[in-house]
């Protein structure tokens, strides 16, 4: 579980983070201002909020590629509801509810239908995103109540945005859940050996269902924040986010085989991501170059331990 190697990985991430800070502040005079950094957080908070439950899911041995599609679907649902005149409270309920429902569909496919999670979520990803396109086509929904904007655009205190505060709160909650409670322990067990877990009296399929539902719910949260920040909805919203979110999780040291990982690692990875995206943007380097680094980092994350173990 919490092997020494993991601590070393988190240290490495922290080192990369600090190094990145130093490099960017040298390269750009605008970098080290509080306002700039506060703006920077918006680059990753929404994705990182989804990375938290997804980390739990991957540690438990499953995967969910449909998270970005769930965000889109929830956003479209909220947009439609808003067009019908729903208030902020109702919109949040609909966003969260859609996400939860979508997560339950994933959970049902995997836990009851016995469909492997990668296959099920490829299917639901296409289904949910397809539903968003089918409903909205090439329209854009921009009709949101003013009070709705506070989630994505508001500040809690000083430079700390509501999004950042929420992310910090969730990160703490997830960390406590995963590393201190018995359900977190079960998550690791199910990922490390689902059969032995079942033979230890654990209702494995019920846990997996719950984790998918949780991931869906938090995708709904991200949808609320993102839609609130952008003030508009289109079916292509959050396109490509699933890969970035999964990359965040794997970069954070969570093993794709299941049974290993930490929330701290995911948080650090999310920070590294946000830093890189923002820093490169500040230097006018297009995002696609970042994706080369992301790809290389991903492969290094899994290759380095493999090479070390071969000795």
């Amino acid at each position: 579980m919490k092997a020494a190697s993991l601590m070393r990985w988190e240290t490495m991430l922290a080192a990369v983070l600090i190094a990145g800070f130093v490099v960017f502040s040298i390269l750009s005079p605008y970098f080290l201002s509080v306002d700039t950094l506060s703006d920077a957080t918006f680059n990753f908070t929404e994705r990182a909020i989804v990375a938290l439950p997804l980390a739990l899911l991957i540690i438990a041995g499953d995967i969910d590629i449909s998270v970005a599609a769930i965000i889109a679907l929830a956003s479209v649902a909220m947009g439609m509801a808003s067009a019908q005149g729903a208030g902020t409270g109702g919109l949040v309920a609909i966003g969260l509810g859609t996400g939860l429902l979508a997560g339950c569909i994933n959970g049902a496919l995997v836990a009851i239908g016995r469909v492997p999670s990668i296959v099920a979520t490829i299917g639901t990803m296409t289904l949910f995103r397809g539903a968003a396109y089918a409903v909205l086509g090439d329209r854009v929904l921009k009709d949101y109540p003013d009070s709705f904007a506070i989630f994505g655009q508001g500040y809690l205190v000083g430079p700390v945005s509501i999004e950042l505060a929420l992310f910090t709160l969730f990160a703490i909650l997830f960390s406590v859940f995963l590393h201190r409670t018995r359900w977190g322990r079960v998550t690791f067990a199910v990922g490390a050996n689902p059969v032995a877990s079942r033979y230890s009296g654990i209702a494995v399929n019920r846990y997996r269902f719950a984790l998918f539902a949780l991931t869906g719910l938090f995708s709904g949260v991200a949808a609320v924040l993102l839609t609130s920040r952008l003030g508009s909805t289109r079916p292509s919203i959050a396109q490509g986010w699933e890969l970035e979110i999964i990359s965040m999780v794997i970069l954070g040291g969570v093993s794709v085989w299941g049974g290993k990982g930490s929330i701290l690692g995911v948080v650090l990875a999310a920070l590294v991501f946000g830093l890189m995206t923002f820093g490169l943007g500040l230097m006018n380097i297009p995002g696609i170059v970042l994706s080369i680094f992301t790809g290389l980092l991903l492969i290094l994350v899994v290759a380095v331990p493999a090479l070390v173990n071969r000795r």
Partner: protein
Amino acid sequence: MSVAIPRIEGSARRDAVFAALTLALFLAVTFAFPGFATPRSVAGLLDDTAILIMLALGQMLVIMGRGIDLSIAANLALCGMMAALFNRAWPGMGVAPVLALSLIAGGLLGACNGLLVWKLRLPPIVVTLGTMSIYRGAIYLLSRGAWVNENEMSREFLAFPRGEFLGVSVLSWISLAVAAAFVFAMQRSKAARDLYAAGGNPEAANYSGIDPGRMQFLAYTICGAIAGVCGYLWVARFAVAYTDIALGFELSVIAACLIGGVAISGGAGTAAGVVLGCVFIGIIRSSLPLVGISVFWQMFINGAVILVAVLLSARQRQFKRTILEARA
């Protein structure tokens, strides 16, 4: 003397049922829109599905070996851009070197995936996620973000896939040839049978002297080579090359494999099934505008078809141990 066609458990019946379903769908659409079954229309359908068929067959090899290739579309795009840039720089060299370049480049890109999975035993999903990003980014670096337009492509470059033979485009002929080769090879060649074994039970395969990792390496290399050639064909067919071509197409390819009966757990899948899966998706895509359903429903319907297909397959995957049924 009859040659026993080897049977992968349940697949022959599944393919037959699916073929019947596809035919039924085709007939249903034709019944409502007689214009759908004209030779011109069918040729167009083949043309639209040709690249998907070839990519799906390559992906099938990878999935059968218990891998997955998410980088297949990025591979295609990168090789397509390479082909376009090569052609822009040396238009007089004709199509043959372009084809060779695409094939080799795609094969090398696929081999990178294969090496990481074989030698380092890295999880295929992470490896191909990584290479997908790297290859996409490489397109940008190669082209500086600029497009290669139709007027920058030589006549032969553009004409090759569009040439017609018996009313069917060269592109379609290529995909038919590839499909036929796959159907033949999957049943007759030793390498393919070894791949089935390696994917079905890697441990037992080891005991029999087959290296499952090496089979995966070969699968990734072949898949990459196909993707490379399809890169040129795509760019030539659509007469444009830029960073984002075929963005997200890997999911359509994987979906076609899943609908076609390839099991994600490895060791099962037929070339015929995959081709049928592609044709099925193609018919749906072509018939939507006819039926008056906006193209925006295409994705949703695809998703529904995938889910139905995998739910049915998951059901089949229960081999009961027959203690009581075994005869004394």
